[in-house]
């Protein structure tokens, strides 16, 4: 198999990754912030569970809820909450014209950038949590090795899915005004629909079918459920297929949207 077509994108991935690796101090500050949010949410849910006034049975045990909270804080870097500043700048200033002159595919280039933008923060931010886990400061029970394996695989797919969402939102910036709106809404949508704000199972039952089919779920909620055994490992393959189908769909929409927009693209400025 001839892989030479992938070489520029791999080079881009490497360059972006090493650039992003420089922000280690920021990642450490981020870790402390996440530690705070994690403890805050654990405290909140613990006292909610203690008050015993619930009209219905809880969808998760307290231990599972706490596990969900810590996994969400640990994997926060995967969340598709922002777009690449440089892409935004390129679109606003019209520099994207230079990018179009290059003999490489613009979609793949932006996808690679988005992937690097999710991969490195995820690594930098999860490592301190893994150390905490190792020394027993926080405790997230994992039922079996196969659950852990599928968790790992679905995290990887989650990264790809997240990069696909990020690239699509970057492309939406070509539609200046609505793109701005989508970009502003993105962190709130991603937070709520991926299960970061509260675990998705706490939403009312009539809302669950919608939550089950939307793509943000594949970023954080599904890997966490696999890790904690809320979804048995037998469903691991189904989860990965779910993530792959959404990734493919969003990539196709992105490619199509970019192509149709670039056909009528007007570059202002000289």
């Amino acid at each position, binding site marked *: 198999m001839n892989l030479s077509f992938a070489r520029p994108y791999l080079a881009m991935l490497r360059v972006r990754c090493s650039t992003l690796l420089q922000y280690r101090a920021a990642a450490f500050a981020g870790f402390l912030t996440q530690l705070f949010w994690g403890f*805050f949410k654990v405290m909140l849910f613990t*006292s*909610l569970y203690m008050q015993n*006034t619930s009209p219905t049975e*809880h969808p998760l045990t307290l231990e599972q809820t706490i596990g969900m909270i810590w996994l969400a804080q640990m994997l926060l870097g995967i969340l598709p909450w922002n777009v690449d500043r440089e892409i935004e700048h390129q679109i606003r200033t019209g520099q994207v014209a230079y990018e179009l002159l290059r003999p490489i595919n613009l979609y793949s280039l932006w996808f690679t950038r988005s992937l690097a933008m999710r991969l490195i923060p995820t690594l930098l931010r999860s490592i301190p949590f893994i150390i905490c886990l190792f020394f027993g400061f926080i405790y997230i029970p994992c039922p079996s090795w196969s659950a852990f394996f599928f968790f790992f695989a679905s995290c990887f797919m989650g990264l790809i899915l997240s990069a696909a969402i990020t690239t699509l939102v970057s492309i939406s910036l070509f539609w200046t*005004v609505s793109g701005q*709106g989508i970009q502003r809404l993105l962190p709130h949508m991603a937070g709520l629909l991926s299960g970061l704000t509260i675990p998705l199972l706490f939403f009312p039952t009539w809302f669950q079918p919608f939550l089950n089919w939307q793509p943000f779920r594949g970023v954080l909620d599904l890997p966490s459920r696999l890790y904690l055994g809320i979804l048995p490992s037998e469903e691991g393959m189904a989860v990965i297929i779910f993530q792959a189908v959404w990734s493919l769909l969003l990539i196709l929409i992105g490619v199509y949207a970019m192509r149709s927009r670039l056909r009528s693209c007007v570059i202002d400025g000289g």
Partner: protein
Amino acid sequence: MDRLSLFTKIKNTFRLIVHFAKLHLRAQMAYPMSFYMLVASHFLGICLEMLAILALFNQFGQLAGWSWDDLAILYGVMHMGFATAELFGRGFDTFNLIVRTGDFDRFLLRPCSPFLQVALREFQFMRLGRLIQGALALIWGLSTSVAASTLLSFWPKMALVFLAYMGTSCIFYGLFVFQATLAFWTIESLELMNITTYGGLEAGQFPMSLYPHALRAFFICIIPLSCTAYLPIAMLTGHEMLSTPVGFLLPLVGVLFLGISACFWQLGVRHYSSTGN
């Protein structure tokens, strides 16, 4: 300037604020569609986050004895206070850049207080999105909460809520000032301080009685968000036994907090030695 009476000074300051507000508004309205889109998406985003709280009510029935109708008042006051502080106080947000580039030297040369100059750098009118969302929640709470309708009659109730709102925005504004002042020593912006602003908002929108004593004490003595929002509203809705005058006086702690942060700012300015050349 010294010969001007205090009254004239206040009048001039006020005129300057209005003038800058108009300038910022005109600049941000240069692309009206874009501006409305920003406000609308901000509004929608906050609505989405509120869905999570509503889901918690659906699941747990109540939060520490508070119904959603009661909590909506507290939620509204907190978010309106935060939005107001953000609208007027975001000039302090990127202040570390001014220190780092040495631009603050120029601020000191102008015949106007540096505090006012930094404050007037930026008004973010898109924060109206959160303000409107908070106001809607507040109106919902005030009109449906049964508990809140028994203790006080209409006008005193409005006055209490207004005081709580002003006190809360003073605290958040004060926190922005604190965060900016630290840049005199650190040069860098301190992301960690976001724990106090966003964390304070997140924690303060729930009843304090959910938290352990240490955290409750923190929100009374150190960042007194409890004094300005939780305690007065809990008094109004009958969740904390406080005498009415105390409930009315507590939000003034917010003004005190803002005053302390302004003093800290003065200390920072005195400490400032230029980084530029």
